[in-house]
């Protein structure tokens, strides 16, 4: 299994990426004008109180020192204290990870469950009415903005049909599945079309391949050729595309989380940027970066597993 040895050294390659991300975020957030202490305390606070907050959170120190301090803490597993929430950053962030993770996985699973049958049906008889319908769906799905689609789904499923809650996260795994169905559906209505188009095109291209003609000549049933060989060979580009899109989705949860009031990282990111809560922004960015890296890592593993010829 030497083809999988990259699993061992890949994490080491990732370290510089994370450090790079942390430096860039650190500088970018600090570049936004606006004093965190003033935003926190508002107009009514005295300059004294503002100076005190700046001192307490080390905001009066040079930028380089602040970064060094941040890294030193990070290496000790300390994320510092949030200026807005007056609580350890870790305690603020940790509650937010699960909802975002749950939503992302749910959305991706729904997307795949939706995309694979649709693409298979469409490519089975290119140009048929089924194919046409799938293509209309994928074009429409890509074009619908999430904030609008979200409200429409709520009106239909929550207000008219009363099947799913309007928003929220619920308690317990089954309740999460129930609460997050609409947000996950919103994700998949945007994501599935991308996958459908890609998978359908790849399937059609594969159907033209020589090996398909050879198998047909041998008398293999069409269904076996389609599902057993063509489908499997078409998966690699789609898996890679899925990886790219999940990375994009991690950033895109912001909109969906706020429409559906999911208490996840995306919402925390927005409020922390508005409040100039530098350390929380840092922490969430690092989480997002780690998430993207993990997704790509996972895609690499799947790719290698799917195609014996690929090496990393």
């Amino acid at each position, binding site marked *: 299994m030497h083809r999988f040895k990259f699993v061992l050294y890949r994490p080491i390659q990732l370290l510089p990426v994370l450090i790079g991300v942390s430096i860039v975020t650190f500088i970018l957030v600090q570049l936004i004008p606006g004093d965190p202490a003033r935003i926190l305390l*508002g*107009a009514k606070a005295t300059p004294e109180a503002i100076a005190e907050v700046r001192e307490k959170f080390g905001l009066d120190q040079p930028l380089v020192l602040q970064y060094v301090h941040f890294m030193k803490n990070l290496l000790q597993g300390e994320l510092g204290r949030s200026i807005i929430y007056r609580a350890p950053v870790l305690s603020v962030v940790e509650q937010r990870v699960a909802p975002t993770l749950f939503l992302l996985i749910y959305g991706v699973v729904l997307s795949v469950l939706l995309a694979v049958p649709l693409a298979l049906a469409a490519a089975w008889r290119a140009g048929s009415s089924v194919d046409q319908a799938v293509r209309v769906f994928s074009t429409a799905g890509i074009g619908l903005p999430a904030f609008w689609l979200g409200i429409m789904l709520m*009106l239909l499923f929550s207000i008219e049909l009363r099947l799913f809650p309007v928003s*929220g996260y619920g308690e317990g795994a089954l309740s999460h599945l*129930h609460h997050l169905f609409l947000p996950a559906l919103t994700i998949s209505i945007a994501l599935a079309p991308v996958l459908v188009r890609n998978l359908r095109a790849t399937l059609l291209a594969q159907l033209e391949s020589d090996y398909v003609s050879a198998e047909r000549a041998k008398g293999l049933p069409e269904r076996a050729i389609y599902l057993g060989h063509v489908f499997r060979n078409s998966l690699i580009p789609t898996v890679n595309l899925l990886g790219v899109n999940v990375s994009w989705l991690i950033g895109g949860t912001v909109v969906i989380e706020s429409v559906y009031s999911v208490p996840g990282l995306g919402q925390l990111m927005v409020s922390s940027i508005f409040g*100039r809560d530098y350390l929380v922004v840092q922490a969430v960015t690092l989480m997002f970066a780690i998430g993207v890296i993990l997704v790509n890592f996972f895609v690499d593993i799947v790719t290698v597993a799917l195609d014996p010829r690929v090496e990393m």
Partner: protein
Amino acid sequence: MHFKWLLPAGAAFAAAFGAASAFADGGTLKIGRDQDSNTLDPIFTIENADIWVLNNMNAKLVEVNEDMTGVAPDLAKSWDISEDKTTYTFHLREGLKFSDGSALTASDVEFSLERLRDEKESVLRSMFQVMEDVKAPDEHTVVIELEHPSAPFLSALAVFSASILPEDVVKERGDDFGTNPVGAGAFKFKTWERGNRIVLEKNPHYHKDGQPKVDEVQWLVEANDNTRILKLQAGEIDAAIFIPFSRVEGLQNDPNVQVHLDPSSREDHVLINHEHPPLDNVKVRRALYHAIDREGIIDAVLFGHGTVATSFVPKGQMFHNPDTPTYDYDPDKARQLLDEAGVEDLTLEIITAAGNETQQQTAVLLQNMLKQVGIELNIVKQEPGQTWDTIVQGEYDLSLNYWTNDIIDPDQKATFSVYGENDAKSYYTRYHNPEVAKLVEKGRTVLDAEKRRDIYYKIQEMAKKDVHWIDLYYSPFRNASHQYVENFHQTPMGRFTLEMTEINK
């Protein structure tokens, strides 16, 4: 109906979770709001999202009375004030307890008030510097010595920051007290899932009999306005606050929902930088006033749900002067005043917070109105966090802003907005009229109510004459609840009287 396949799945979900809610007598009141709280330590915040939760968890020595003309007993059952008006003696009720069951004694009061005055990050500490000494001679008595007589002192003690907290718990939890607080109010802190909800439960040790009525209050974060309203209509929450003005009428037509437009102390205004010529000329400032059709702004931006502001002390608040000089919408007059001031081709910049719809709309209307009198107005959108810096540093001509009162006494707002001899620089307008400043100082020390009223009437009249800023409008709170929710009310000071709220399903 291609969504039919979802019906069985959804119905199964609904069956599994819909029936699970079995609550006790008083029920749970779920309130949706647009943002989460930041901290629940009363001295470290000035955010409404914090204050409105704190108000129902904490008790103070005194509270604002119902008609907002003064204070009423809360933890203190009575108090005496010395001849020279510098010694206040408070007598606590017997058998007071915090929500964790521990005794609330005079030493907790001493600790809480000293902390409020002395902690450097305490946001409203300047209001309490007048306290020279706080003592607890026995368990039920608190004696406060003031440096000098102070008229606003009693109403200051009713502010959320002056909540009485348990000394040992605050000391033990330190910085974490704000995420895990204990108080002596009608409700007890239960849990806080950040970004999701804060759960408060009935405080069994609350000192007022028969309150609160509901067993539990949940403050849910529903940031998106549409979602919050849909959730209310779907019956998933019992009340929603911060209804956009554009949605008020639609909700008023929903038979299941009641809309509460409770009066507030909010006043929206245009700050004017008096250090930027020609805005230092009162004629130019008056010309701006005459050029603005405030009724038009209220109709367009607030959908009519507001009234023209006439003074910086809002209508309905203590010592509001109903007869200040008026500046009617009169573009001709505005042009004439500009002529007299010798101002031509004036270009001004107005700072607005990006993403704030109300401000953007108002700014565009102002732009059109000022154009009619020959003033070019450039709208500068800044990221909300940046606007403070710009205003504090005085790098602006005009800016849209608002104020809500924390205490009923007008001293706090007068000191901040028209005094001009402190760091606030008259809300950073740099307005300074020595006569007004003298009156503001006098207003703090004169204790006779009628004389004080005259002083504040005079302050309002003079400041309005000087056009320290432009008063735009007073607007109400916009909350909505289901018909089965009774007594869901917000006082003008912003406090939800949830201890009186009932659910009658």
